């Protein structure tokens, strides 16, 4: 399909989804904790706009509620909470050393291709004209996971986790115009609680091992016994 053949809001949606993908690549590359959080907030914002756009395209206005949820949770609450945490833990200036960043980037690119390849059967069926956005959302999920794998700091892992959630949310929006409202609320609640628990854990880990380097959490194993 030619992008020119699409209406302006759809073009906007496509652009936004591209930007969301870009943002998660940015997350993958980001080394400074505070800018990591900012990038995450940015992704949330893009997600919010994308939701709005799709709401207008599809005319499903209950999407506005989930858009509002996104705004409140992913753009405002979580980033603020995380920032306060890192300030309290005094790690907001820390710079994390990435192992083979270029390789990770390449792998992320590969994931995008792979998710496109995987989500073909879905996109065939999508009502939405901007259907390949589903592939994007899958890619965002996978890249989020890749980020958790490639990072050692607890904070970065949490942010990777959250960006996975973003991907899921995006997938729900672009494929099925959001989930049933009760489910949306439930998911939002879970995410909320999850973030708070993460916060609690930061302190525990910090007090136990003196830093947030999760690679030092490796006492429980079957190997050296």
């Amino acid at each position, binding site marked *: 399909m030619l992008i020119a053949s699409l209406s302006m809001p759809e073009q906007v949606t496509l652009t936004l989804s591209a930007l969301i993908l870009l943002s998660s690549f940015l997350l993958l590359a980001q080394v400074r904790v505070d800018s990591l959080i900012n990038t995450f907030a940015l992704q949330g914002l893009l997600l919010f706009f994308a939701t709005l756009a799709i709401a207008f395209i599809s005319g499903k206005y209950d999407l506005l509620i989930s858009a509002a949820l996104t705004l409140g949770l992913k753009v405002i609450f979580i980033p603020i909470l995380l920032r306060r945490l890192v300030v309290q833990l005094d790690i907001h200036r820390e710079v994390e050393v990435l192992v083979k960043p270029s390789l990770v980037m390449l792998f992320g690119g590969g994931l995008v291709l792979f998710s496109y*390849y995987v989500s073909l059967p879905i996109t065939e069926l999508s009502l939405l004209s901007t259907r390949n956005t589903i592939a994007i959302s899958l890619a965002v999920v996978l890249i989020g996971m890749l980020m958790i794998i490639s990072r050692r700091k607890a904070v970065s892992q949490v942010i990777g986790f959250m960006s996975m959630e973003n991907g899921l949310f995006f997938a729900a929006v672009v494929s099925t115009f959001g989930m049933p409202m009760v489910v949306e609320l439930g998911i939002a609640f879970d995410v909320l609680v999850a973030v708070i628990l993460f916060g609690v854990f930061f302190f525990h880990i910090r007090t136990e091992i003196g830093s947030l380097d999760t690679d030092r*959490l490796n006492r429980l194993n079957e190997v050296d016994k």
Partner: protein
Amino acid sequence: MSLTMAQLAVFLTLLSSVAALVFVKKPRFMINVSFFLLGLSGLVAVSAGGMALLGNQVEQTILPVGLPWLHVCLHIDALAAFFLFIVGFVTFVASCYGPSYISRHADDGAHAVSTLTFFTGLFVAGMYLVLLAADAFSFMIAWELMSVASYFLVAYQHDRAENRSAAFIYLLMAVVGGAFILLAYGVLAAFGDGFSFVSMAKAHLSPTWATIAFALAFIGFGLKAGIVPLHVWLPQAHPVAPSHISALMSGVMLKVAVYGFIRFVYDLLGGVQWQWGVLVLLVGAISALMGVLYALMQHDLKRLLAYHSVENIGIIYIGLGLSMIFAATDHKEVAAIALVAALYHCLNHALFKSLLFLGAGAVLEQSGQHNMEHMGGLIKKMPVTAACFLIGCVSICALPPFNGFVSEWLIYQAALQGTVLKNGILGTALPITSAMLALTGALAIACFVKVYGVVFLGLPRTEKIEEAHEVPRGMQFSQIVLAISCLVFGIFPTWTANVLNVIPQKLLGAGFAGVNGESWLWLTPINTQTASYGALPVLIGLLVSWVVVYFFLHPPTRDNSIRIAPAWDCGFGPLNARMQYTATSFAMPIRKIFSFAWHVSEKVEPARIGKGPHYFLHVSDWVWMYVYAPIGKIIHKVAERTARIQGGDLRIYLCYSFFTLLFLLWVIV
């Protein structure tokens, strides 16, 4: 009727277990009650089995327990009845023996004894139920109940590490065996719909599947019966249990395994193929020979007896193998002879092996140790036990006119009919196995001369033996009963064989003709011209000649007094116990001759200052060294390798799920 009684027997055993729990606080009372109930159940089982066997009844009933669509189904027929008789009899005897034997344990904490009696009840109940079960599910439950209960009995004296490891190995191999049996039944169930024996018997298997099922059953039941090379648990587990339990395990439980094998192959599987027979025959022969050879090298009395169980199971399997070969080549009469021989030997082995284990228990209790090298001269301290043990030895050595001889004689007779076979392989397999059987018998004599000579004859080797004395009444009684029955079943073989003859008639469709031939005195499998054995006349002949000779040599005209004098000591001062032959030295020539059979490590330490010379001898089991130990090593290695996936690194864990996801996506797209 007989089935109802059998159920009553089961109920009584369970009751004895319950009694063990109820009267935990009053151990001595508990022992009496629970063993009384056990003995009662034994008697009931004996009468139930006897009725069903003599009346050749077949009964069946269904209990409202088990799976919703497969209720527990019990039955009794001649085969089950015969084995029920054996189990019941030995149970009765063992429970006469038990109370006075384990009352000494009553002091080391009530729980210990109640454990023992509790699981004894379950163990016996399990054996009864295995015999009564008429569907695979209840059979398996009963079977595993038997195994687990006996495991707790083996682990009874669990303070010693070797007992624990013995129990562990026992249970492990029981598990494996149970799995194989389950598979065998599963194959049958898959072909003939349903788990009830009736529908299994109807199953039509292709020869390949039949052979698979047979192999599974052979391994599964063989593991419990203890055929070589699946025997390694047996010599470890049997000795460490209390002696009356060893009697039950060695004398009866192995027979239950044989029952399972017969039931499966003849009754359920059917369509016996001669190759199976050859396999059973050869494995049996090897078991018999290796069993007696290993027994010869033991000096732990009960372990020696346990190895002899391997030998006798081998003999039973020889009989079964012969009968399978003949049945497959459609010589039903000869097959019947071999089958009856095998069954007869089951009965005999149950009798004399229980007798020997009970005797061993009495000796152990008095001498306080397992090692024969520290015994000796017990015949004067405990004459009754000694006499009964002697009868046991004579019977197990298959010497006329006792029972062991009859069954082996029948097996020989069956083997000698090998000329009717047209098949060269079989024609050669039979003589070879009969040669091995002959060798086994001769070696068994050597072994039991050693046992009896070292344990009961000669001079006492320790002080503890000096104050040994005869065991209590109950223990004597049960030994005497067994000894008498050894003689009875030895001198009335015709009657026994006649009774047993209904089993081949049911399983093979033909009994053997000659058994009720000319006279009840003569046991004549085929006909008088071919072969005959009159056990009672032989016995009478022996007695008569002894009496005649005695009176001939003791004329009243002369004083026949005897002068007691010290034995001639070649002038080197008085004889002492260390001068006499030990078990090890007695078996030395055989060890030299058959050195291929063991892994012998021998070491002589020359005398040093303050320390005399020392001689170390360790005889170990090839099978264990080269089959079982490596398996353990392999598992350990594999576990070590596998443990690496639990390396402790979170990110690697995530990689697993990540790549699993990618892989699966890639697979389905």
